[in-house]
């Protein structure tokens, strides 16, 4: 065991010194210094998660999955510390264009006062963020390594068992299919590009447009595949419900916004009549849709029966229950989506649209070729905010509409955290599940920052 730890730390030091040595070489600073800093940073990074865990994942009797989690954690810790060390080195050592630009450093007509004043201004905010966000976040990490339950003060250290219980990587048919499709697409596109027949080639255009959806399905499918059979449905439900809510919500929002954007009298009144559901709470949305979709006494099944359709048992059927949640959530978020799509439409140059109209483009072509591309920044913004809504805020709707049922068909990740941690009192496992969500949120945020930095311009 001790030997393993020493070996791991040596590897960490080596990786760190290589990375930072190269980094210092590019900064034209002594490579040896970089290697030294890197070795220390690498070891510190390895210890970041492993010291609290006491290297338990590398105990001889541990399963391969635990060792894998251990390596992943060590790698993540090293990544965080090495990246920070590299960044700090550039910030303090580099000159000119190599020096990272910090938006936070900008000052506008600054006051030349004592350092205390800005700190006093910031301290209330910092205290609240530390106590109510940072401290719980750290406590969450601690809890996730414990067997801890409500109603008892005793805890037992469980290493990463709470995580390995919900993880069980495998390849599903969907993933394999998506991988094959991606390979076919990449090869196909490359081949057509090579023979140079890209112009007006419907096959080529179709393949191009299929790349993003395929990669998205692949990403989601691989994520679902990571988890153990018990937990996989929860992740799947989350993606299914969130995905359709986001897609339908944004598309409908865009369609309605386009409609109300047309020059008509009383547009402001229509707009107000269309957007107010944003202010309705997810819980109230759940209550109202619970009434409407009640299989026995609900108005929806009554209306269906008027046109001769026997209404289904909406909230008792696993598949329909998901859709009932999606419909309620789309309704609740529609106002928000309409509002932002309207704002986006107003930013699109009217001249462009008129020019397209003169060119003989019909309404649909104008929409697809001129309006839609101009809307990408706002649609991207809506995508991120809608995903956040679907992940977290939908809790109230689910709790009032289906309570996660039937048979867990509408239990999303946040609902499972609540059921497991609060209703069943299993704090440790619930903390581990919260951290799994945390990783997803970090992923989305990084994606958001990168994309908004590079491609999407919010310029007014």
């Amino acid at each position: 065991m001790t030997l393993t730890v020493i070996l791991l730390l040596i590897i960490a030091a080596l990786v760190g010194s290589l990375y930072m040595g190269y980094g210092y070489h590019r900064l034209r600073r002594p490579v040896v210094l970089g290697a030294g800093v890197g070795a220390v940073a690498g070891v510190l990074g390895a210890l970041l998660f492993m010291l609290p865990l006491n290297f338990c994942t590398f105990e001889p009797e541990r399963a391969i999955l635990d060792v894998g989690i251990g390596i992943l954690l060590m790698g993540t810790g090293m990544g965080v510390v090495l990246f920070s060390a590299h960044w700090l080195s550039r910030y303090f050592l580099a000159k000119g264009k190599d020096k990272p630009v910090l938006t936070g450093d900008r000052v506008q007509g600054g006051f030349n006062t004592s350092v205390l004043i800005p700190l006093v201004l910031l301290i209330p905010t910092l205290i609240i963020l530390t106590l109510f966000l940072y401290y719980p976040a750290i406590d969450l990490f601690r809890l996730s390594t414990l067997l801890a339950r409500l109603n008892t003060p005793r805890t037992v250290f469980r290493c990463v068992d709470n995580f390995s219980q919900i993880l069980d990587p495998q390849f599903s048919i969907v993933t394999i299919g998506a991988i094959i499709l991606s390979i076919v697409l990449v090869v196909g596109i490359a081949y057509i590009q090579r023979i140079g027949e890209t112009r007006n080639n419907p096959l080529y255009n179709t393949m191009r447009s299929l790349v993003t959806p395929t990669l998205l399905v692949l990403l989601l499918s691989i994520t679902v595949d990571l988890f153990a059979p018990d937990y996989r449905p929860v992740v799947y439900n989350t993606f299914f419900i969130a995905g359709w809510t986001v897609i339908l919500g944004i598309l409908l929002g865009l369609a309605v916004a386009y409609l109300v954007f047309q020059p008509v009298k009383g547009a402001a009144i229509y707009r107000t009549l269309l957007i107010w559901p944003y202010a309705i709470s997810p819980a109230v949305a759940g209550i109202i849709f619970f009434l409407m979709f009640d299989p026995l006494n609900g108005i929806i099944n009554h209306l269906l029966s008027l046109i001769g359709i026997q209404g289904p048992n909406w909230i008792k059927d696993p598949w329909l229950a998901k859709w009932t949640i999606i419909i309620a959530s789309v309704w609740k978020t529609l106002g928000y989506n309409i509002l932002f799509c309207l704002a986006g439409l107003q930013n699109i140059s009217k001249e462009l649209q008129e020019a397209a109209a003169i060119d003989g483009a019909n309404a649909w072509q104008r929409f697809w070729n001129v309006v839609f591309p101009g809307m990408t920044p706002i649609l991207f913004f809506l995508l991120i905010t809608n995903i956040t809504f679907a992940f977290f805020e939908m809790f109230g709707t689910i709790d009032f509409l289906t309570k996660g049922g039937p048979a867990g068909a509408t239990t999303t990740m946040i609902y499972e955290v609540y059921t497991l941690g609060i209703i069943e009192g299993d704090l440790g496992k619930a903390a581990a599940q919260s951290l799994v969500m945390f990783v997803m949120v970090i992923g989305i945020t990084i994606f958001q920052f990168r994309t908004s930095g590079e491609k999407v311009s919010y310029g007014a």
Partner: protein
Amino acid sequence: MTALTQTYAPEKKKNANSWLPQRWYLHILLWITCFIISFPLLYAVIVATQTNDEVVRYQVTPGSSFDTNWETVMITRKLGSYMVNSTVQAIIVTVGKTVLSLLAGLAFVYFRFPGKWLVFGFVLMTLMMPTELLIIALFRFVSGLGWGDTMAAITVPFLASATGAFLFRQHFSNIPAELSEAAQLDGANPLQFLFRILIPISWNTIGALAVIQFIYVWNMYLWPLLIIRDERAQVVQVGLGSLRNIDTTLTYGPLMLAAVVTSIPPVIVFILLQKQFMSGFAITRDK
């Protein structure tokens, strides 16, 4: 945001069927859309006045039970007290967060101090920590403070946020630097500058943050569900749950009445402040 209210000029061409409004098909489409979107709430409003019998008979006119339902909601189940608690909570958080965010924005834009990038990063990182994610640990911490069943538990943790601080930071950086230079020449201290100059020209942004916060807090459900147990301290979204069972069976009327009454404050705030709401987001998108 003037762009929002701007519409195309009406077509000058005289319509052949002059008794029809211009582009009548659009009006019909819009009316249908408005009806579909409003249908759930309209139906809830009707049910709110009905007895269970009237609900299951699918009566589409207002029912006979408004008084009884009102009495159930307000007297038997104390929705009024939940509303008061939610109002107090929403106001404390809205005002508190606006003040703290103004101060933080001021510090970020108008001051130079060592380690500023670090503080900035510290605040920025919290964008990745939604409260919902932390509830298990936050519950243990707030419980440990002995804040169960108190107003503090549902307000203090929400008094500061990265969104608020960055909203004002963005807004202030769009204000010409000459303004603060002139203020300093006049001998104003930072707080005087904030109250005399910045706030008066920031009402739109303040309104934006206020409307977002008000609706966010009013609609908060998961956190009070965990931390508030005493009926007298309960907020409205959780309190709604107590209306599901009144008699031996589910009673639709009182439940819907409560749902409708609960939704009135945020909807009014939102409709009145929708322009501020949009302008707030317009700022965050300005680079």
